[in-house]
């Protein structure tokens, strides 16, 4: 077993997952529960986007699953001056991030976090 592949999102809940076949990665977007029902870009919102490298599932040819963590991106929306909101974004590399990989542009990633629809959970 490989417990090092687990990510503890603490008090945040899963918003949605995504697969990127081009990069061979798989991701989960987490957010704090208060922000899940309201607008993504609102005061006090907190998000974590965890990305893992994919690997074939041992035991079942026909499924790819997460292996080592590739990156952990965090984003928060805080009150700023003049009733403006302040957006903080950070990209942290994980054990499977290779030096040859490029860090994506923050603007693109923020957009990815803000626009990703919520997965339907009953």
């Amino acid at each position, binding site marked *: 077993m490989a417990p090092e592949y687990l990510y503890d999102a603490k008090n945040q809940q*899963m918003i949605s997952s995504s*697969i990127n076949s081009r990069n061979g990665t798989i991701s*989960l977007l987490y957010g704090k529960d208060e922000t899940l029902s309201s607008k993504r870009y609102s005061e006090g919102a907190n998000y974590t986007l965890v990305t893992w490298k994919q690997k074939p599932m*041992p*035991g079942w040819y*026909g499924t790819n*699953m*997460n292996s080592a963590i590739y990156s952990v991106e965090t984003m928060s929306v805080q009150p700023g001056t003049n009733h403006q909101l302040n957006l903080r974004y950070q990209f942290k590399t994980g054990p499977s991030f290779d030096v040859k990989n490029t860090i994506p542009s923050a603007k693109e990633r923020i957009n990815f976090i803000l626009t990703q*629809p919520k997965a*339907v959970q009953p």
Partner: protein
Amino acid sequence: MKNVSSFFYRRIFVLPAIIIVAFALLQLSASSFKNPVVTAEIQVPEEIKQILERSCYDCHSNQSQFEWFDKIVPASYLVAHDVEVGRSRFNFSEWDSNPPAVQEVLLWEMVNAIEQEKMPLERYTWLHPDRKVSKAELITLKRYVNTLSGRHKIDTAKIKRSVIQPVQVTTNHPIALNGISYTPAYKNWKVISVTDKYDGGSMRVVYGNDIMIKAIKEKKLPFPDGAMMAKLVWGKQRVDKEGNTFPGNFQNVQLMIKDSKKYSSTEGWGFARFDGLELKPYGKTAAFEKNCINCHRLLVPQNDFVFNIPTKPIK
């Protein structure tokens, strides 16, 4: 002295004679497996059919062709048992008894059973070494399953977000036929794996409760009683221009609950599945859980019968 030796000689010939006669009589009692009629044979390309016929048909079809040595008691009893069980799991001669989606899953399961050298059964290939599936044939089979329709299924339907509440709003959760109740508690559990199940065109997120997470962290197998998992399954939307695939419609939620006493007949795991936003319990009879454990038992016994735990890649 003479008397003793004649008695001895009589013994030495009579005993084997009795054994031979008994053995011959036993053969008459042989439980010979019969070949029922072929109602709907599987339709696959010829090169695939040839592999299945040679290596699998003896136990998974109504066209079993065993050798003379398979028909000798007591071997014939073992053979008859394997044929009976093999046919009950799936039967290439009654292939339409399963809906198309299940047929596809079975074909993928076959590829996995061969890859892990679980099939054909070892006790069978030991006597019939020519029935083994070669590496090249396995590649052919893999190429074939990748052409099945589920492999490229895209969920293009508009995403349904909620069910219209029935007039009588109940707070009771749906209950599967084996007594396992749906629980929304998983939303506060931790995610243990995220998967792209490309064989059937779905993507999944698997949650584990505290007991499950603790066992994974301590690398403790078998999982302790009280361990629970919830797997959420969605269709896959079309890949966008950045290469991303997002979840489509919600398909089902599947639970696995560990209780070694209560679920002792299914290796200690209780299974349940709830379909669609209505969370309709899956299965026509409580025996549905046999289908779950049969596959888990065959392919992941080393992981306490769980597929979705974080594991190192196989080198």
